[in-house]
């Protein structure tokens, strides 16, 4: 950390104050909307529409929660489980696949390696929306439209994870370790599973977290693929409820409470896995 800076970069008091004010205002800008969400989720409908969030009365967080889980026959808990399944399982499988591939890019030599890697990097650039129609047509050909797989399979694909996997593998797994394992007569895959994968742990967690966020954010693909409400992830479900809110305002407080709960898993994941993703960001940034 750069605490040493302040000893020799001592700016004038005024500059110091300005810097702190700018940062404080920026933090308020990022925090206040989240704070609004928390407050709005705990208020009853009348208080919500009076825009008078700071008043003491009108709290009904428990009632709002009950409403949320009772709305439309408990659809919300269904969506929540779907989202968890798509995101956690998808990110776990996806991260394993991409890190293994990035590791192979780093540790082995073969023909056209850099061309293949270029293809992977190109895939990072291609917009989701470009792939959606062909994916839909392919899924409908395979009879997978409106099933779990139609959303689950495409989200496994994470080319940026391969790029990170290659960088992590170069940084965390010394070539000498592989040589030593070979001398000991260990198979290549055994070495990967028993030795390298363990060293790649922090990198794997970073890729997992990136992908978890991406899948939890996913909106376009489920919208294209799914028509059965029982398969919706939270984002798509809330989108639909919000569209009903203009007609039946009882949806407003439900959508707000639902949004608040949908934010929690990622915050939890980021806090729990903090020390991993910080190192991961550095690796991605310094390159």
């Amino acid at each position, binding site marked *: 950390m750069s605490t040493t800076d302040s000893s020799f*970069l001592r700016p004038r008091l005024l500059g110091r104050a300005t810097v702190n004010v700018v940062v404080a205002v920026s933090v308020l800008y990022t925090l206040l909307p*989240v704070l609004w969400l928390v407050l709005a989720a705990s208020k009853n409908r009348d208080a919500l529409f009076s825009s008078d969030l700071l008043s003491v009365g009108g709290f009904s967080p428990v009632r709002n929660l009950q409403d949320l889980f009772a709305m439309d026959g408990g659809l919300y808990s269904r969506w929540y489980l779907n989202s968890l399944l798509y995101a956690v399982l998808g990110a776990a499988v996806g991260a394993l696949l991409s890190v293994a591939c990035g590791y192979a890019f780093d540790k082995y030599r073969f023909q056209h390696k850099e061309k293949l890697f270029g293809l992977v990097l190109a895939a990072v*650039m291609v917009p989701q929306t470009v792939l959606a129609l062909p994916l839909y047509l392919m899924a409908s050909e395979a009879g997978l439209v409106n099933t779990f797989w139609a959303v689950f399979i495409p989200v496994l694909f994470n080319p940026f994870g391969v790029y990170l996997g290659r960088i992590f593998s170069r940084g965390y797994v010394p070539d000498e370790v592989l040589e030593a394992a070979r001398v000991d007569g260990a198979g290549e895959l055994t070495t990967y599973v028993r030795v390298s994968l363990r060293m790649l742990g922090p990198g794997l967690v970073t890729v997992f977290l990136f992908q978890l966020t991406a899948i939890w954010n996913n909106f376009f693909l489920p919208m294209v693929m799914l028509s059965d409400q029982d398969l919706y992830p939270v984002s798509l479900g809330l989108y639909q409820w919000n569209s009903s809110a203009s007609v039946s305002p009882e949806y407003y407080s439900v959508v707000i409470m639902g949004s608040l709960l949908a934010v929690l898993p990622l915050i939890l994941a980021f806090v729990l896995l903090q020390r991993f993703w910080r190192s991961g960001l550095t690796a991605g940034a310094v390159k």
Partner: protein
Amino acid sequence: MTTTAQPRVPTDTSRVGDPALSPAGRRARRTAGRRRFGAVVVLMGPFFVLLTTVFLIPVGTAVYLSFYSDDQPGLGFGPENTVFVGLRSYAAVLSDPTFLGGLGTVALYCLIYIPLMVVGALVLALLLDSGVVRLRAVAQLGLFLPHAVPGLIAALIWLYLYTPGISPIIDLFARADITIDFLGIHAVIPSIVNIALWSNLGYNMVVFYAALQAVPREVIEASVVDGAGPVRTALQVKTPLVRASIVMVAIFTLIWALQLFTEPMLLSQSSPMISSRFSPSMYIYDAAFTRNNYSLAAAASVVLLVCTITLSYGVTRFTSRADAEEAR
């Protein structure tokens, strides 16, 4: 995001015959080589199967669809007549004022959003790195928090903050006798920029901050010894040293900005200013799934793809040329 060019090496160096080796040694090497090849296939195979199914084939299909058209779109029976129509779909897309309008909207959105984002995140990172900010860890956490809020939820929060009757912001303005319509014709693009900025500012700040942490302390000390103030040190010493991160953030921001979909899609539920073809991605969605015109949607997809690749490539070229000039 450049990769270091490695010298081309034949498939497997261990297979090249080495006269110094005994036949047994050569055989052992050959088996080792084969085993390594097997490992590469197992490690990379699953990802490349995925890449082929959900990336290569779809891109190919999009290109194919853009050149062909069904004679009777929308009818599920009768003989399917898929005919080659050449560039007809492209002509239709590129002469469609709603598509061109969408491109214009996204261009304007990018012009406002990308500079704000890159400069804002960089300035915040430099301020946090300057060592004069109190409670730096808390500030960082606070700035990063919106990254944990999914895109659609961020759009929902801001939609409510833009909605009269619910929003405390509009209420505050109203008390000062200012009426502001965040979803009106002039404000709608800045309103969307604000949502994206709010969501991603902290994340990119952390990326820049991480890169700044890697700047060698001696370099900064040297500039201080040379008499540079903190502002000059930040702008003329630190910023050039994190240029790689700046380019990376700019390219990723650009790629995401060009796909603009979630925010306008949600806001369109409440704002008549946002049509169903507001952005190219919404145009594609509308063409494919509302109008069932697959070839039109495919042509629009390919145009969007070409724009994305050209612009990303342009940013890389532009910055590497600037690098070369600086080196001269």
